[in-house]
C-alpha cells in the first residue's frame, strides 16, 4: 500500500534538509566511527588499529625490533638518549551505508511521514559523511524491489549531493520489509566495512531485524539503528476509536475498538517492541535511537544521535 502523497512528502523533507541554513548546521556534525577495516586512506581517524601513516601524532612507544625506523623520533633520542618510535592516529576512509526501509509500512500512518523523515535523515547523514570526504551510498530495502533492494552508487564528493537527492526522490515506499534479505544482498559484493545506518520502523519480527543487524556487526560495521516512530503510532487514539485495521504490507485486517484496555495492551506491546530493539542493540554495540517524527529531524540529528554516540 502506497500513500499517494509519499513522494511529495519525501520531496518536502529533502527540500527542508538541502537548504543552505540547514546544511550549515550540519557542518558542525561528524560521524563517530569506532572501527573500520578499510585500507584506503581517508580523513576519518580510527581509534584503534595498525600504525597509520597519518600526520596526527598520537603517542610514542619504545623502539622494538621490526619497527619502521622512519618513525624513530630522533629529536627525542638526542634529548633523552632513548629510542622512541612515533605512532600516528590512522586516518581511513569510512564508507557510509545508509539502509533505508522502503517498505509500505514507512508510509503509514500518513500523518507521521516516517518515510519522508527517513529520507531527510539519510540525506543529512550523507551530507555529514560527504563533507568528511567519506563515500556514501543509500540502499533502499523492500521486497517489492528487484533483489529486494536498490542501491545507489557511492557518492564521494559533496558536489554529488544532488545526485543523492535525485536517487532518494525516486524511492517509493512499497511492498513488505526486506531488512535482512535486502541488506544481505546489498552487502554481497561489499568487502570493506564501514558505517551502516539502518533507518526503519523495525515493524518486523525481532528475530528478523536481529539477524540483519547481527550480520552487519559480524561484517565489522559500525552499526546504528534509527527507529522512526510517529505520533499516530505512539498514540493511536488520535487515529481512531473503532476501526478495521489493515496491515499496510500484508493487507491483513483486524477489527479493533480502542478502549482503555486495548490501548494499554497496545502501548505495552510498543514498549516491549522498542525495549527489545534497544536491548539487542545495546548488547551488540549498536547505536540505537528512536526518532520521533513529531519532534523533528533537528532533534534527532543534534540531540538524539549525538547522545547515542553516532554523531559528535
Amino acid at each position, binding site marked *: *500500500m502506497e500513500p499517494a502523497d509519499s513522494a511529495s512528502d519525501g520531496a518536502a523533507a529533502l527540500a527542508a534538509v538541502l537548504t543552505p541554513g540547514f546544511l550549515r548546521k550540519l557542518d558542525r556534525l561528524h560521524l563517530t566511527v569506532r572501527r573500520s577495516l578499510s585500507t584506503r586512506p581517508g580523513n576519518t581517524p580510527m581509534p584503534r588499529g595498525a600504525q597509520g601513516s597519518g600526520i596526527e601524532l598520537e603517542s610514542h612507544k619504545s623502539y622494538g625490533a621490526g619497527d619502521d625506523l622512519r618513525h624513530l623520533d630522533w629529536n627525542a633520542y638526542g634529548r633523552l638518549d632513548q629510542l622512541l618510535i612515533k605512532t600516528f592516529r590512522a586516518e581511513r576512509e569510512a564508507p557510509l551505508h545508509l539502509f533505508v526501509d522502503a517498505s509500505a*509500512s*514507512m508510509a*503509514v*500512518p500518513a500523518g507521521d511521514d*516516517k518515510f519522508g523523515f527517513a529520507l531527510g535523515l539519510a540525506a543529512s547523514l550523507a551530507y555529514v559523511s560527504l563533507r568528511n570526504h567519506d563515500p556514501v551510498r543509500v540502499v533502499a530495502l523492500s521486497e517489492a524491489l528487484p533483489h529486494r533492494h536498490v542501491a545507489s552508487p557511492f557518492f564521494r564528493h559533496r558536489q554529488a549531493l544532488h545526485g543523492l537527492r535525485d536517487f532518494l526522490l525516486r524511492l517509493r515506499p512499497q511492498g513488505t520489509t526486506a531488512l535482512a534479505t535486502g541488506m544481505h544482498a546489498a552487502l554481497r559484493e561489499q568487502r570493506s566495512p564501514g558505517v551502516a545506518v539502518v533507518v526503519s*520502523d523495525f*515493524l*518486523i*519480527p525481532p528475530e528478523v531485524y536481529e539477524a540483519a543487524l547481527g550480520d552487519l556487526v559480524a561484517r565489522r560495521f559500525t552499526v546504528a539503528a534509527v527507529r522512526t516512530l510517529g505520533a499516530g*503510532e505512539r498514540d*493511536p487514539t488520535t*487515529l*481512531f476509536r*473503532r*476501526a*478495521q*485495521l*489493515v*496491515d*499496510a*504490507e*500484508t493487507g*491483513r*485486517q*483486524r*477489527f*479493533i*475498538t480502542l478502549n482503555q*484496555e*486495548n490501548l494499554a*495492551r*497496545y502501548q*505495552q*506491546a*510498543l514498549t516491549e*517492541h522498542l525495549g527489545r530493539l534497544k536491548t539487542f542493540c545495546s548488547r551488540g554495540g549498536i547505536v540505537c535511537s528512536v526518532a520521533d517524527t513529531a519532534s523533528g529531524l533537528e532533534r534527532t540529528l543534534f540531540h538524539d544521535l549525538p547522545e547515542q554516540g553516532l554523531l559528535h
Partner: protein
Amino acid sequence: MGFAEPLALLFTALYGVLVVFYLWERWRRQLPVPSLLLWEAVREDTLRARRFRPDVLFILQLIILTCLIIGLARPYLRSDQGGAVGGRHIFVLDTSASMEAREGRRSRFDEARAAASARLAHLDAADEVMVVSAGHAPEMLLNFTRDHDAVAQALAQAAPVDAGGDLAVALAFVDGARQRSDVPTEVEVFTDIPRSQLPAALRDQVTVFQVGESDDNLAIEALQVFQGRFQDYRAARAYVLVQNFSHREGHGFLTVRLQEQVVNRSGFTIAARDSKGFLINDFPGPGRVSAQLEVSDALAADDAALGWIRPVTPVHVLVVSPKSPLLDDLRALATAVPALQIEVVSPEAFSAAPARPADVVIFHRVVPERPPPVNALYIYPPADNALFPVLAEAANVEVLDWNPRHAALQPLRPLAALPLQHARVVTPPPWSETLLSSRTLEREFPLAFAGEHDGRRVACITFDLEAERLLSSDNINVFLFFLNLLGWLSPDAGDAMVVRTGDVQPLPPFPAQPVQVQNPRGDVSTLAPSQQSIQPLVAGEYRLSSDGTRRTVLANFFDPVESDIGRASKEPPVFHHAALTPAGGLAAPRVTPRDDYRCWLYAVAAALCVLEWIVARRVVR
C-alpha cells in the same frame, strides 16, 4: 390468526436494518497501519464482524424484533367457527324528529352520523358492529357484522323520521342484545339527548355521544278542523296552535291554504316558551287544509300541518220501527240536517234487500232474523231477540263510564249524568267495545256498544231512546251521541284520513289488493296483502291507491316533547368501559383479550433483551 393492525407488519423492513447493522460492522472505516505486529496483543472485537454469519446474537435480536413487530400488529386468534376474537359494538343512532334540527350547516343527524363514522374508523377490523336506529320504534338496521363497509353503508342510508322517539325503549332493546352477546359489547349512542336524561339503569351501560345545542324552534302543535259529520264546509273552522319552544321571542307568518288557495296569512310574535292560537273560518270549499309557518328556525318538520274539510255527502238512513214518537224526532232531525235523508218502514215491510240501498239501517225495538248487509244501529232491542241476548231489565240507570277514545264520544266529555228510564241488560258480543256503561246491583252492563262484524259496522243502544225524548234540550248530550254514532256508522269513503306520525292507522277499505303507497318524499312502496295498517313516519300527504281507488292519508308531526329541541347541557362522552380513556375522545382505545397477546409478546421481547445482553457480554467484548 389475524392481525388487527396489519400495517404494522411494514416494520418487517427493520430486518434489513438489522442486517445492515451487522454489515456496518463489516463496512466500518478501514484504517491502514504500518503493521499488525503490535496489534496482535490487542484483543479483536469479535469474529462475527468479519463477515455476515447469523449467530446466536443475531437470532436473538431477530426474535426480539419479530416479537415487537407482531405485538404492534396486534395479533388475534380466530375461533373454531372462523370468527375473530374481537369486540362488539352496538351503534344506536337516534332517528327521532329532533335529530333533523339544523346546527349550522349540518343537521344533528349528520353530526351524529359523522361521529358514528369516526368511531367506526377507529375500531379494529375484527370488531363486530350492529346498527340500531332509535326512531319512533327501535329498528335493527344491521346485525352484528365485521363488514365495516356495510356498517358505513347502513349509517349512510339511515335517515331521521318525522316522529317522536323513545330512546329508553331502544336502549332496553340493545341492552338485551348486549347481555346475550358472548363477547364484550359496548353500546354507543349517538343522540341529542344528554346522558343525564337517560334512564339511570341504562345510562351507565352506554357511551353517549351527544350532538346539538340549539333551542330555536317554532312549531305548529295542532291543526284541528272542526266539522260535524253532517255539516258542509261553510260550517267548518280550523284551529291552529303555534308554540315557541325557544328561550327568546319568536316571529313569523302563518299561512293557511285550502288546496293551493291562501285562506289566511297572519304575522305573529310569540314570547319565549309561549304559544298562540289561530282560528280560521270561512273556507271557500272542501279539501285539504294546510298550515305553513314561515319562520327561520332549526327544525322544519313541525313547521307544516295538514287537515281535511269534508265535502257534503248525503246519508240515506232507513229506520225500521213500529210507530213511535222517536220517528217524529228523527223526521224533525232530517228536516234540520239537509245531509240526512231518513226513510221509515215498518218491521213487517222491511226487507233485507230493499229497492234503494241505505247507508245505515236503524232498528228500533226490532231485531231482524237476518242482519242486513249494511251498517246498522239497534236501539232498545227487544227482550227476545237472538242477536243481543237480554239478561234483564233495568230502570233509572245512570251513565257511569264511557269510552272517550271512540269517535262517537270524542267531542263529548263528560256526558251529563241524567238517569235513563229504561234499559236492557245485554251481554255485549266479543267483537264490540263498550261505549257507555252503567251497573245494577248485580252487574255492570253496557248502555251502548259498537264494533265491526262481518265487515259491517254495528252499534247498539240498550236504553229506550224513545223515552228519553231525543230532541229535548235536557238530553243534548244524548242527541249529540246519537248523531256522532250515526256519523260513525256512515263513514265517508272519500274522506282523507288525518293522523299523527308514528301512529298505526288501519287502512281504509280498498276493493282490491295490493295497495301502493306513495309517501310525502315520493317513495312508492307496495303493502303486503296481509298488511291492514299503515304507520306514517314522515309528515305530509300519503297517497294510497289500488285498482283505481285512491285514498289520502294526511300525517302531521305533532309532538311537543320532540319539538322542544333545546337541551339543558351538552355533556361530553363518558366511556362506560373502565379501560377506556375519555381523553381519547372518539379514538379511545379499547382493551380486548387480544391485547393480552400483545403484552405477552412484549414481555417475551423484554426477556430476550436481557438474555441477549447476557450473551453479548460473553460473546462480544
